[in-house]
């Protein structure tokens, strides 16, 4: 992938995430108003495909966005760059997507 494509991916996912994060924060405030347990939250969200789609998109965007930001930080602050770093970051993206989608699947 070219630097331009990575740059575009980072900006596009940022645009997607901006409203999603706000809704997500609002949802947290609402959800924890009665104390917070996974069971309790799941009992309220389970089976709702709209929330599943919402968090599916959220997870995928975050999985693309976060490693790209980390890539710039590693490059600028620690001088780490090159294929090896990119490979590790792809794995990191896969890890984020995997963990996130597992949680989304639990909702369905």
């Amino acid at each position, binding site marked *: 992938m070219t630097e*331009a494509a990575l740059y575009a991916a980072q900006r596009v996912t940022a645009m997607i995430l901006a409203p999603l994060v706000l809704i997500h924060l609002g949802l947290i405030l609402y959800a924890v108003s009665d104390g917070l347990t996974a069971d309790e939250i799941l009992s309220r969200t389970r089976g709702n495909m709209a929330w599943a789609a919402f968090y599916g998109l959220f997870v995928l965007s975050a999985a693309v966005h976060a490693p790209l930001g980390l890539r710039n930080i590693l490059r600028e602050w620690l001088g780490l760059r090159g294929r090896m770093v990119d490979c590790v970051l792809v794995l990191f993206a896969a890890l984020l997507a995997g963990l996130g989608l597992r949680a989304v699947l639990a909702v369905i």
Partner: protein
Amino acid sequence: METGTAPQPDSTEPDRTKPDVPLGDYLTVRVSRGKGPENRYEEFQVPRRENQTVLDIVTWIQRNADPALSYRFACRVGVCGSCAMTVNGKPRWTCRTHVSKVIGKERSLTIEPLRNLPRIKDLAADMSAFFEKWQQAGGRFAGKTDRTGPLARIDPESPGRKAVDAGIECINCAVCYSACDVVTWDEDYLGPAALNRAWTLVNDERHAEKRETMKKVSAAGGCHSCHSHGSCVEHCPIGLNPTAGIAGLKRRSVLQTFRLSGEK
């Protein structure tokens, strides 16, 4: 008609009969000295003069206090771009920087070489990397015709020509390069001046190698590394806006990557 009245002085004119600097006034100037990475500070007492520039101060020190002081200048009028130094922590063109503007109430003046470039000696920084990146960014003009061909006719109102106009007056002083934190962090980053140059070229209808220039500025360490925080704009003595040009390069590279633009 009245005769014999002397012309009245215009009250908006400064009173040139009084010096703006008291006679016999001295300034303590700290100068960074050393070869290569070594660095020590030396203090000099320099007489204050009217309309004195920072370059005047450095020149006074070299001529009157220490002839071994190394620094660089040529035109003394803000054209050649060779006199840039770090003045009280900020990169500036010293020939057009008045002492009275920078010493503040504390009346302190510290002069160091430009940041982000290796020091050769004292106040002279090694500009090689700065100019090499100019080339790495595809900053060399390639004509479509030779000198016998007809002159290109460029509409002064065309958007391309206007974009070129906005960035073309760069004097290669490296003030922006010295002000840019991304240059500090990432040794491969091409920097504001080289990218600004590339932006004027990809907007120049006569440039035959726009594609190559775009390819070079889109590689790692190119335009996408810019944080758009505008330190280059803040410090550019000519008032250029490299950040805007770099944003233009980013936009163009993304459009070209996804084939959304017919521009070559």
